[in-house]
């Protein structure tokens, strides 16, 4: 999704679960090797360097859910490349860390899913490769790492964009 997409096109809502002050959050930078744009609600996991990568695939990594975009102003100062562009500036803030909600006792609504039909109690996973890396999709227990279970069918995120609701649940591929 373009960094200039409307704010309301990419959303994550914590429908149920701990209040904001008590949520289990994790903060880390996004790995420079991530090629997909990080959108709100996308599935993230930590690589060996402690940086966020998109999706969990069939790994046993803990799924987390992006609370902001990779291009948000409190995450990424953006701008031209200082090493090549004579007009580059350098942001002192932000720090480059993205906030993510760790898989736990939550019901979440997210716009970051592969379009399709999802049934109640359907297992969800998120591939870590390709263009759909980080997006929720149907998963197979025992084959994929499960990061959620559908709680409500696809609906509206309140701003006209489709959103999928699910309970976060970590079932590693063992």
């Amino acid at each position, binding site marked *: 999704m373009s*960094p*200039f*997409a*409307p*704010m309301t096109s990419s959303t994550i809502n914590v429908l149920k679960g701990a209040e904001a002050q008590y949520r289990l959050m994790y903060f880390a930078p996004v790995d420079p090797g991530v090629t997909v744009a990080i959108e709100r609600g996308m599935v993230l996991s930590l690589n060996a360097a402690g940086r966020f990568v998109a999706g969990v695939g069939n790994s046993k990594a803990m799924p987390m859910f992006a609370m902001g*975009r990779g291009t*948000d*102003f*409190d995450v990424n*100062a*953006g*701008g031209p490349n*200082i*090493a*090549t*562009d*004579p*007009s*580059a*500036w*350098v*942001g*002192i*803030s*932000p*720090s480059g860390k993205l906030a993510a909600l760790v898989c736990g006792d939550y019901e979440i609504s997210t716009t970051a899913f592969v379009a399709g039909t999802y049934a109640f109690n359907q297992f969800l996973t998120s591939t870590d490769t390709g263009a759909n890396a980080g997006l929720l999709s149907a998963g197979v227990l025992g084959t994929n790492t499960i990061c959620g279970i559908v709680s409500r069918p696809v609906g509206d995120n309140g701003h006209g964009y489709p959103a999928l609701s699910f309970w976060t649940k970590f079932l590693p591929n063992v």
Partner: protein
Amino acid sequence: MAYFDPAETAQVNEAFFTAVSGNGSGMVKQAQDMIDDYTRKYMREDGFYRKIIPMTTIGNDKLDKNLYSDRPMRIEELEPNSPAAMSLPYGGLPDGFTMEYRNYPVYFDYVFTPKFMKNVDTLRTTRMDIRKIMNDNAVKDMLAEEDGKFLSSCLRACVGPGLIVPGSGVVQHQVLAGGVTKNTIVDTQKIMPSTPFSISAHMGLMNDLTMREFNKWDVPQTGDNVAADIIEKGWSKERILGMDYLFTIKKGLVPTNRIFYFGDPKFIGKSYCLQEPTMWIKREAMNVEFYSFELIGGAIGNTAAIAIADIQ
């Protein structure tokens, strides 16, 4: 750093205990004015980022809207370039030049201390300076985080050791041999003015171990009076070869034998505070939790106002 006498320390401890053990179990308490004031006082004295680029507190009216994000930001303007004047014979007209200038953004994020937790009843008999511990932990950690972010930006602005910065066409992070001698220091002071922008370095920053190398300077480098002073008091000058220097103990941020140079703040960029350092305190029954936070932003708009020297 100022320290309070025992009588005042006890008074502050009592006030803090009263503040966190008062009525209203489960209610969120705002920090008492006195505690807030103490926090702000230490902020002015510690840290070097705010001495290099003074931080200005701004309100919502100074922020700029953005169509694609609700995060606060501010757009700053940079002085436009213009080509040099020219001499022409009769009948000539100058080249056309469309006036252009560029903007750069200032973004904001939070700086937090850890959330400290304590059973209030265990504070009843402590004789430690609770305020000093709170301030030292909270304020110093926040200042160190500010300093670290700023120096990380300075390193990015100079691209890397021995590498040309495209904005100036000059290597602004130089590696110089020869040890910390007067001649080497002179060479480090020449890095910033060597760019086409001719900005003079306004202030230098080094750690205290680098500074102690000046104690090795002998009479030909220091003169008789200073040499005698060094023997008695050690190096005590903050102004060296016509420039002010800051000395820091944060060796993790400023490695030994590295000197950062900064132009006048108006040449570097901007630094803002949206939320002053604030302490959040919560008490539930006998347990108290507290942390400090602030919302700050900054940007280096002109990378030619930063220079770094690594002395070998």
